[in-house]
């Protein structure tokens, strides 16, 4: 039943692709899918492992910059650059997790803020690879059979990636690893007493989530065609976190729902950008106080 809900939410943006010759709508559909993928990855940490990773956007950025550089400078095909970017992001994510992984709750979140800030500064201060604040423009679309992937197909491809990501998380959470991560989230001292290797399992979660961040980051670069440090700063991490929190942490449908609702907001309120910030702020407060289970907890009540 829950899988059906996830599938429904995943396929909903596809309707936007039938909106006709409307560039902005198809663009938003692509972004929704990318955010679904990223939020699902972040949920693996925040929802299922109990860690708030404010480094998430930075890790996605690493993959985006590596992938764009390999394609533009080295002339690689996107399809070969993509796995390299993902693996690099996963490894960096894993390494960055080492100093923080033993911290708990608030202190872990705080360490993530620091690391995220360092990553953002790094994106600015290595202009040879990132073009600094100006960013990298004209990143080409992936090529299939000698042709750049055209509009509705690229969005559908990203949708497939989001489905695979969300499905992968769902499968993982039904496995022994998933149960272990949930147990660690609930009480890590008790887990140690029961023979569970807490640190190793957390590192694994970080590796897998960073892999998803890398996938989302690289796709973002080649979908939007432009990346800059602002695209991967702490506000992006916070937005993704908010998607998970609003949708419902620790569920498969939650991040999909959160991404579906929050991604279009800045475009809907384009003329009133201050309103977007008000809505975001209100959403944070409302979720924390009234709806710790997120929207999915009212929309899709657990069937027994």
């Amino acid at each position, binding site marked *: 039943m829950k899988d059906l809900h996830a599938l429904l939410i995943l396929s909903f943006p596809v309707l936007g692709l039938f909106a006709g010759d409307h560039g902005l709508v198809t663009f938003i559909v692509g972004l929704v899918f990318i955010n679904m993928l990223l939020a699902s990855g972040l949920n693996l940490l925040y929802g299922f492992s109990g860690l708030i990773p404010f480094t998430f956007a930075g890790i996605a950025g690493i993959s985006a910059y590596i992938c764009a550089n390999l394609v533009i400078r080295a002339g690689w095909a996107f399809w070969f650059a993509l796995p390299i970017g993902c693996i690099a992001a996963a490894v960096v994510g894993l390494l960055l997790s080492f100093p923080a992984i033993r911290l708990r709750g608030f202190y872990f979140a705080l360490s993530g803020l620091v690391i995220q800030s360092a990553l953002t500064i790094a994106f600015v201060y290595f202009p040879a690879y990132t073009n600094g604040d100006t960013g990298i423009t004209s990143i080409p679309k992936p090529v299939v059979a000698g042709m750049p992937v055209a509009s509705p197909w690229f969005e559908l491809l990203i949708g497939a990636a989001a489905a695979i990501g969300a499905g992968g998380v769902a499968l993982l959470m039904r496995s022994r690893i998933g149960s272990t991560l949930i147990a660690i989230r*609930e009480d890590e001292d008790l887990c*140690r*007493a*029961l023979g569970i290797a807490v640190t190793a399992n957390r590192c694994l979660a970080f590796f897998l989530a960073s892999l998803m961040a890398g996938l989302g980051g690289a796709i973002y670069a080649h979908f939007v065609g432009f990346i800059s440090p602002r695209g991967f700063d702490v506000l992006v991490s916070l937005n993704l976190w908010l998607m998970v929190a609003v949708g419902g942490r620790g569920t498969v449908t939650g991040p999909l729902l959160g991404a579906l609702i929050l991604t279009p907001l800045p475009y809907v309120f384009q003329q009133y950008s201050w309103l977007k910030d008000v809505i975001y702020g209100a959403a944070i407060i409302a979720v924390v106080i009234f709806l710790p289970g997120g929207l999915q907890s009212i929309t899709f009540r657990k069937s027994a």
Partner: protein
Amino acid sequence: MTSQQPLFQATAISKRFGGLQALVDVDAAQRPDELLGLIGPNGSGKSTFVNIMSGTLKADRGEVWLQGQVISGMPQHEVARAGLSRTFQAIKIFRELSIMENVTAGLLGHGIGPAAALERAREALDRVGLVSDTTLKAGRLGLFDQRRLEFAMRLVARPKLLMLDEPVGGLNPEEIRAMIALITALRDQCGIFIIEHTMKVITSLADRVMVFVNGRKLIDDKPSVVLRDRAVIETYLGA
């Protein structure tokens, strides 16, 4: 060899916290067929001893063997995997997870997933006599049932030695009697080591009792002998 090999052996365990010498050269051993008890006033080093045995703390000096295998220096989760399992003074369960999820979590660290663990989990629940709807959230159980659940979470992994830290804490007299009966019944499952700070429970359960005072072992003998010991009486009743 097996009949002579102790279940656990700890030699010259010492631990200092800053200016406080918590344990001084403590030797201890438990035979496979006995139930060993540990008592002592607050701050006598009981909990420090269990924390060192279970790998929660590292001893400054001394070694611990579990059935001939050195376990001192291992991280806590490896000690648990080696077969030394402990409970905590305050009840520690996954309150938000179901009873069944709690018990199967006892096997996660042993490489067995929840689906494969169901049968063994039911067995462990039977053994501790917890007959309840296993889909219920564990936090909704009563205190005594939560204690029994803690036992089941450990027994499911078939430990060699189960160390219970004040298992009757917070229970009413009737529940204490039931707990004593339960622990007695578990003796054929694994070795049991009990910490208590009250005399009554330990004298009715243990075959042998160690008394710690100020980080040293004062006496180590049968309960009847310990109860008559002058130094123990002075410690407990005041000189």
